[in-house]
Protein backbone atom coordinates (compact mmCIF):
# COMPACT_ATOMS: atom_id res chain seq x y z
CA UNK A 1 0.00 0.00 0.00
CA UNK A 2 1.40 3.39 -1.00
CA UNK A 3 0.66 5.72 1.88
CA UNK A 4 0.60 9.08 0.08
CA UNK A 5 -1.59 7.62 -2.64
CA UNK A 6 -3.98 6.26 -0.03
CA UNK A 7 -4.23 9.64 1.69
CA UNK A 8 -4.85 11.29 -1.69
CA UNK A 9 -7.57 8.72 -2.33
CA UNK A 10 -9.21 9.44 1.04
CA UNK A 11 -9.07 13.19 0.30
CA UNK A 12 -10.67 12.70 -3.13
CA UNK A 13 -13.41 10.49 -1.66
CA UNK A 14 -14.18 13.00 1.11
CA UNK A 15 -14.23 15.88 -1.41
CA UNK A 16 -16.53 13.92 -3.75
CA UNK A 17 -18.77 13.02 -0.80
CA UNK A 18 -19.11 16.62 0.40
CA UNK A 19 -19.62 17.88 -3.16
CA UNK A 20 -22.45 15.42 -3.81
CA UNK A 21 -24.14 16.00 -0.45
CA UNK A 22 -24.01 19.80 -0.82
CA UNK A 23 -25.25 19.76 -4.42
CA UNK A 24 -27.90 17.17 -3.56
CA UNK A 25 -29.22 19.18 -0.63
CA UNK A 26 -29.20 22.23 -2.91
CA UNK A 27 -31.66 20.36 -5.12
CA UNK A 28 -29.44 19.24 -7.99
CA UNK A 29 -30.20 16.00 -9.75
CA UNK A 30 -27.23 13.70 -10.52
CA UNK A 31 -25.01 15.36 -13.11
CA UNK A 32 -21.82 14.56 -15.01
CA UNK A 33 -19.93 16.39 -12.29
CA UNK A 34 -21.32 14.43 -9.33
CA UNK A 35 -21.38 11.07 -11.08
CA UNK A 36 -17.92 11.82 -12.49
CA UNK A 37 -16.56 12.47 -9.01
CA UNK A 38 -17.90 9.09 -7.95
CA UNK A 39 -16.39 7.46 -11.03
CA UNK A 40 -13.04 9.01 -10.06
CA UNK A 41 -13.39 7.48 -6.58
CA UNK A 42 -13.98 4.11 -8.24
CA UNK A 43 -10.98 4.46 -10.57
CA UNK A 44 -8.73 5.23 -7.59
CA UNK A 45 -10.10 2.11 -5.86
CA UNK A 46 -9.17 0.01 -8.89
CA UNK A 47 -5.65 1.53 -8.78
CA UNK A 48 -5.54 0.68 -5.08
CA UNK A 49 -6.54 -2.91 -5.91
CA UNK A 50 -3.68 -3.20 -8.42
CA UNK A 51 -1.24 -1.66 -5.92
CA UNK A 52 -2.40 -4.07 -3.20
CA UNK A 53 -1.92 -7.03 -5.52
CA UNK A 54 1.54 -5.96 -6.69
CA UNK A 55 2.99 -4.37 -3.53
CA UNK A 56 3.83 -7.60 -1.64
CA UNK A 57 6.14 -8.60 -4.52
CA UNK A 58 8.21 -5.47 -3.76
CA UNK A 59 8.45 -6.17 -0.05
CA UNK A 60 5.53 -3.90 0.88
CA UNK A 61 3.43 -6.35 2.88
CA UNK A 62 0.38 -5.72 5.04
CA UNK A 63 0.92 -5.81 8.81
CA UNK A 64 -2.66 -6.89 9.44
CA UNK A 65 -5.05 -9.47 8.09
CA UNK A 66 -4.96 -9.86 4.32
CA UNK A 67 -8.47 -11.32 4.39
CA UNK A 68 -9.89 -8.34 6.29
CA UNK A 69 -8.10 -5.93 3.94
CA UNK A 70 -9.48 -7.80 0.94
CA UNK A 71 -13.07 -7.79 2.23
CA UNK A 72 -12.87 -4.03 2.80
CA UNK A 73 -11.41 -3.45 -0.66
CA UNK A 74 -13.98 -5.61 -2.45
CA UNK A 75 -16.86 -4.03 -0.49
CA UNK A 76 -15.53 -0.54 -1.26
CA UNK A 77 -15.23 -1.40 -4.95
CA UNK A 78 -18.93 -2.35 -5.03
CA UNK A 79 -20.22 0.87 -3.49
CA UNK A 80 -19.62 3.57 -6.18
CA UNK A 81 -21.04 1.47 -9.06
CA UNK A 82 -24.12 0.72 -6.93
CA UNK A 83 -24.58 4.42 -6.17
CA UNK A 84 -24.07 5.43 -9.82
CA UNK A 85 -26.55 2.76 -10.91
CA UNK A 86 -29.04 4.06 -8.34
CA UNK A 87 -28.55 7.63 -9.59
CA UNK A 88 -29.09 6.61 -13.22
CA UNK A 89 -32.28 4.70 -12.42
CA UNK A 90 -33.70 7.34 -10.13
CA UNK A 91 -32.66 10.83 -11.21
CA UNK A 92 -33.82 12.74 -8.16
CA UNK A 93 -31.95 15.16 -5.94
CA UNK A 94 -31.76 12.59 -3.14
CA UNK A 95 -29.83 10.29 -5.44
CA UNK A 96 -27.10 12.94 -5.47
CA UNK A 97 -27.06 12.81 -1.67
CA UNK A 98 -26.91 9.00 -1.83
CA UNK A 99 -23.82 9.32 -4.06
CA UNK A 100 -22.26 11.58 -1.43
CA UNK A 101 -22.99 9.08 1.34
CA UNK A 102 -21.44 6.36 -0.81
CA UNK A 103 -18.24 8.39 -1.37
CA UNK A 104 -17.91 9.12 2.37
CA UNK A 105 -18.41 5.42 3.15
CA UNK A 106 -15.58 4.62 0.73
CA UNK A 107 -13.38 7.22 2.48
CA UNK A 108 -13.96 5.54 5.86
CA UNK A 109 -13.29 2.10 4.41
CA UNK A 110 -10.06 3.19 2.72
CA UNK A 111 -8.93 4.71 6.03
CA UNK A 112 -9.64 1.37 7.75
CA UNK A 113 -7.67 -0.40 5.00
CA UNK A 114 -4.72 1.91 5.64
CA UNK A 115 -4.87 1.04 9.34
CA UNK A 116 -5.02 -2.68 8.59
CA UNK A 117 -2.04 -2.46 6.23
CA UNK A 118 0.20 -0.23 8.35
CA UNK A 119 -0.63 -0.32 12.07
CA UNK A 120 -2.22 -3.56 13.03
CA UNK A 121 -1.29 -5.10 16.31
CA UNK A 122 -3.50 -8.18 16.09
Amino acid at each position, binding site marked *: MIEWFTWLQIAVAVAAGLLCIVLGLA*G*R*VPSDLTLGSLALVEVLLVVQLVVALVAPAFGNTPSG*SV*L*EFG*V*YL*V*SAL*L*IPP*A*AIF*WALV*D*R*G*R*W*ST*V*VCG*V*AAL*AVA*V*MVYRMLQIWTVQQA
Partner: protein
Amino acid sequence: MSDASDTAPAPERPGRLGGIGRVLVAVYAVLALAATGRSFVQIVQRFDEAPVAYALSALAAVVYIVATIALTRPGRTWYRIAWATIIFEFTGVLVVGTLSVVDPALFPHDTVWSGYGRGYLFIPLVLPVLGMWWLAKHRPDAAAPASEESAARSGAAS
Protein backbone atom coordinates in the same frame (compact mmCIF):
# COMPACT_ATOMS: atom_id res chain seq x y z
CA MET B 1 -38.32 22.05 -0.02
CA SER B 2 -39.14 20.66 -3.44
CA ASP B 3 -39.62 16.98 -3.98
CA ALA B 4 -37.41 14.87 -6.22
CA SER B 5 -40.21 14.75 -8.77
CA ASP B 6 -40.06 18.53 -9.25
CA THR B 7 -36.52 18.47 -10.50
CA ALA B 8 -36.27 14.98 -11.92
CA PRO B 9 -37.64 14.06 -15.33
CA ALA B 10 -38.91 10.70 -14.02
CA PRO B 11 -41.97 10.72 -11.75
CA GLU B 12 -41.71 9.64 -8.14
CA ARG B 13 -41.65 5.89 -7.78
CA PRO B 14 -44.31 4.41 -5.54
CA GLY B 15 -43.32 2.75 -2.30
CA ARG B 16 -42.09 3.80 1.05
CA LEU B 17 -38.87 4.96 -0.59
CA GLY B 18 -39.59 8.62 -1.22
CA GLY B 19 -37.49 11.72 -0.68
CA ILE B 20 -34.89 11.62 2.03
CA GLY B 21 -35.97 8.08 2.88
CA ARG B 22 -33.75 6.99 0.00
CA VAL B 23 -30.74 8.32 1.82
CA LEU B 24 -31.82 6.37 4.90
CA VAL B 25 -32.02 3.21 2.83
CA ALA B 26 -28.60 3.91 1.28
CA VAL B 27 -27.02 4.31 4.72
CA TYR B 28 -28.73 1.09 5.84
CA ALA B 29 -27.36 -0.69 2.79
CA VAL B 30 -23.83 0.50 3.50
CA LEU B 31 -24.10 -0.53 7.16
CA ALA B 32 -25.47 -3.93 6.14
CA LEU B 33 -22.54 -4.35 3.77
CA ALA B 34 -20.02 -3.29 6.43
CA ALA B 35 -21.52 -5.53 9.12
CA THR B 36 -21.71 -8.49 6.74
CA GLY B 37 -18.13 -8.06 5.57
CA ARG B 38 -16.80 -7.72 9.07
CA SER B 39 -18.68 -10.66 10.54
CA PHE B 40 -17.56 -12.76 7.57
CA VAL B 41 -13.93 -11.94 8.37
CA GLN B 42 -14.40 -12.54 12.10
CA ILE B 43 -16.09 -15.91 11.60
CA VAL B 44 -13.63 -17.16 9.00
CA GLN B 45 -10.56 -16.04 10.95
CA ARG B 46 -11.21 -16.51 14.63
CA PHE B 47 -14.66 -17.86 15.34
CA ASP B 48 -13.41 -20.08 18.21
CA GLU B 49 -12.04 -17.05 20.07
CA ALA B 50 -15.45 -15.51 20.70
CA PRO B 51 -18.28 -17.55 19.20
CA VAL B 52 -21.00 -15.57 20.97
CA ALA B 53 -19.75 -12.13 19.93
CA TYR B 54 -19.14 -13.20 16.36
CA ALA B 55 -22.44 -15.05 16.06
CA LEU B 56 -24.09 -11.85 17.30
CA SER B 57 -22.21 -9.86 14.64
CA ALA B 58 -23.51 -12.21 11.98
CA LEU B 59 -27.07 -12.01 13.31
CA ALA B 60 -26.84 -8.21 13.38
CA ALA B 61 -25.60 -8.22 9.79
CA VAL B 62 -28.55 -10.35 8.65
CA VAL B 63 -31.00 -8.10 10.48
CA TYR B 64 -29.49 -5.01 8.78
CA ILE B 65 -29.95 -6.66 5.41
CA VAL B 66 -33.60 -7.53 6.19
CA ALA B 67 -34.21 -3.98 7.47
CA THR B 68 -32.76 -2.51 4.27
CA ILE B 69 -35.03 -4.65 2.12
CA ALA B 70 -38.08 -4.04 4.33
CA LEU B 71 -37.63 -0.26 4.09
CA THR B 72 -37.78 -0.36 0.31
CA ARG B 73 -40.90 -2.54 0.05
CA PRO B 74 -44.44 -1.21 0.09
CA GLY B 75 -47.24 -2.88 2.03
CA ARG B 76 -48.21 -3.57 5.60
CA THR B 77 -46.26 -6.79 6.04
CA TRP B 78 -42.96 -5.21 5.05
CA TYR B 79 -43.86 -2.21 7.19
CA ARG B 80 -44.16 -4.50 10.24
CA ILE B 81 -40.94 -6.31 9.35
CA ALA B 82 -39.19 -2.95 9.08
CA TRP B 83 -40.43 -2.00 12.55
CA ALA B 84 -39.42 -5.35 14.04
CA THR B 85 -35.91 -5.28 12.60
CA ILE B 86 -35.30 -1.66 13.55
CA ILE B 87 -36.52 -2.23 17.12
CA PHE B 88 -34.29 -5.31 17.29
CA GLU B 89 -31.31 -3.23 16.20
CA PHE B 90 -32.07 -0.44 18.62
CA THR B 91 -32.43 -2.91 21.51
CA GLY B 92 -29.24 -4.62 20.42
CA VAL B 93 -27.16 -1.46 20.29
CA LEU B 94 -28.50 -0.29 23.67
CA VAL B 95 -28.08 -3.62 25.48
CA VAL B 96 -24.74 -4.66 23.98
CA GLY B 97 -23.47 -1.07 24.08
CA THR B 98 -24.31 -0.70 27.77
CA LEU B 99 -22.91 -4.13 28.68
CA SER B 100 -19.69 -3.47 26.78
CA VAL B 101 -19.20 -0.19 28.64
CA VAL B 102 -20.24 -1.44 32.11
CA ASP B 103 -18.44 -4.77 31.91
CA PRO B 104 -15.92 -4.83 29.04
CA ALA B 105 -14.94 -8.41 29.99
CA LEU B 106 -18.29 -9.61 28.66
CA PHE B 107 -17.45 -8.43 25.15
CA PRO B 108 -13.68 -8.57 24.78
CA HIS B 109 -14.10 -8.79 21.02
CA ASP B 110 -15.70 -6.10 18.96
CA THR B 111 -19.20 -6.47 17.65
CA VAL B 112 -21.00 -3.92 15.51
CA TRP B 113 -22.79 -2.78 18.68
CA SER B 114 -19.85 -2.58 21.13
CA GLY B 115 -19.56 0.84 22.76
CA TYR B 116 -22.85 1.90 21.11
CA GLY B 117 -21.43 1.36 17.64
CA ARG B 118 -18.25 3.31 18.34
CA GLY B 119 -16.38 1.44 15.61
CA TYR B 120 -18.99 2.57 13.09
CA LEU B 121 -19.10 6.30 13.91
CA PHE B 122 -22.14 5.67 16.19
CA ILE B 123 -24.22 5.11 13.06
CA PRO B 124 -25.78 1.92 14.57
CA LEU B 125 -27.07 4.07 17.45
CA VAL B 126 -28.42 6.96 15.38
CA LEU B 127 -29.82 5.02 12.43
CA PRO B 128 -32.60 3.07 14.23
CA VAL B 129 -33.90 6.34 15.71
CA LEU B 130 -34.04 7.92 12.26
CA GLY B 131 -35.58 4.71 10.92
CA MET B 132 -38.35 4.66 13.54
CA TRP B 133 -39.06 8.35 12.94
CA TRP B 134 -39.29 7.66 9.23
CA LEU B 135 -41.61 4.66 9.69
CA ALA B 136 -43.85 6.54 12.11
CA LYS B 137 -44.25 9.32 9.54
CA HIS B 138 -44.97 6.92 6.69
CA ARG B 139 -47.60 4.59 8.06
CA PRO B 140 -49.27 2.53 5.34
CA ASP B 141 -52.99 3.23 5.26
CA ALA B 142 -55.09 0.15 4.48
CA ALA B 143 -58.08 2.29 3.39
CA ALA B 144 -56.38 4.07 0.49
CA PRO B 145 -55.41 2.27 -2.75
CA ALA B 146 -51.74 1.39 -2.66
CA SER B 147 -50.53 3.52 -5.58
CA GLU B 148 -52.40 6.71 -4.70
CA GLU B 149 -51.55 6.33 -1.09
CA SER B 150 -47.84 5.96 -1.65
CA ALA B 151 -47.79 8.87 -4.10
CA ALA B 152 -49.39 11.04 -1.45
CA ARG B 153 -46.97 9.66 1.08
CA SER B 154 -43.85 10.46 -0.91
CA GLY B 155 -45.30 13.85 -1.76
CA ALA B 156 -45.80 14.62 1.91
CA ALA B 157 -42.33 13.35 2.69
CA SER B 158 -40.58 16.43 1.46
